[in-house]
């Protein structure tokens, strides 16, 4: 095998990750800020907390955050649910 062939094989080992995955990861800082806001509000407002816990996915979507499992889990953890 020539060196160029070996380099070509190595290039092929790193195909692009799905765009949607990359986009979601890039939006983590914004998602984190939204989570902070939701958690802060839930701590101050028991009714909102109950509403939030009843449907975390919907609450995230309403805040403009894609409710991916890792984000939903993080919110649930932070709410102590």
């Amino acid at each position, binding site marked *: 095998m020539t060196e*160029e062939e070996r*380099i070509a094989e190595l290039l092929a*080992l*790193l195909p*692009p*990750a*799905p765009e949607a995955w990359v986009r*979601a990861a890039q939006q983590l*800082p914004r998602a984190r800020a939204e989570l902070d806001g939701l958690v802060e509000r839930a701590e101050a407002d028991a009714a909102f907390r109950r509403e939030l816990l009843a449907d975390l996915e919907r609450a995230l979507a309403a805040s403009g955050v894609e409710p991916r499992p*890792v984000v939903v889990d993080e919110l649930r953890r932070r709410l102590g649910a």
Partner: protein
Amino acid sequence: MGESDAELVARCRAGDERAWHLLVERYARYVHAIATHAFRLPAEAAEDVFQEVFLRVYERLDTLRSDEALRPWIAQLTRRCCIDRLRADRREQPGEGLERLEAAGDDAIARLDEAFTVRLALGELSADCQEVLDRFFCRDESYRTIGDQLGLPPGTIASRISRCLVKLRERLEGGEGRNPAAAASGERVKTR
């Protein structure tokens, strides 16, 4: 290639969202390949691991001891997440030996490290070379598809690929054995 990992990490710590975008872009293929190629996770599990890894990286950037150690740190985080996922899935559905999968995964990560270094060197080539090599080798597009997209005959694509591969090899071997692109991650380039 642009900024080094250390510079990116510093900007991320300062809350620069653009730097975070670049960091994710730089490491997305690597994390994806560790999950899907090294540990052979199915798509759904790989996506969970992918998001989990970047969440942990984002949350724990402050704990990174050396900013130049970003790549090995991300590799270890991804490895850990993959193994946790494999263990959880095995509890539900026993199958192939976990130890064997882990060992194979570790071997594959070493090779992906080499691939990452090549990828960094690719980033130092012209935009034309980057595009044609990425389309052909990473996206598995044919000469005809690439030619149609770029408005060039397939024969020209073939010769461009060949020429760009030589440039990439020279880049990897060049300059006293140290590739400026690889300096971004503090790695020395391995060539035969």
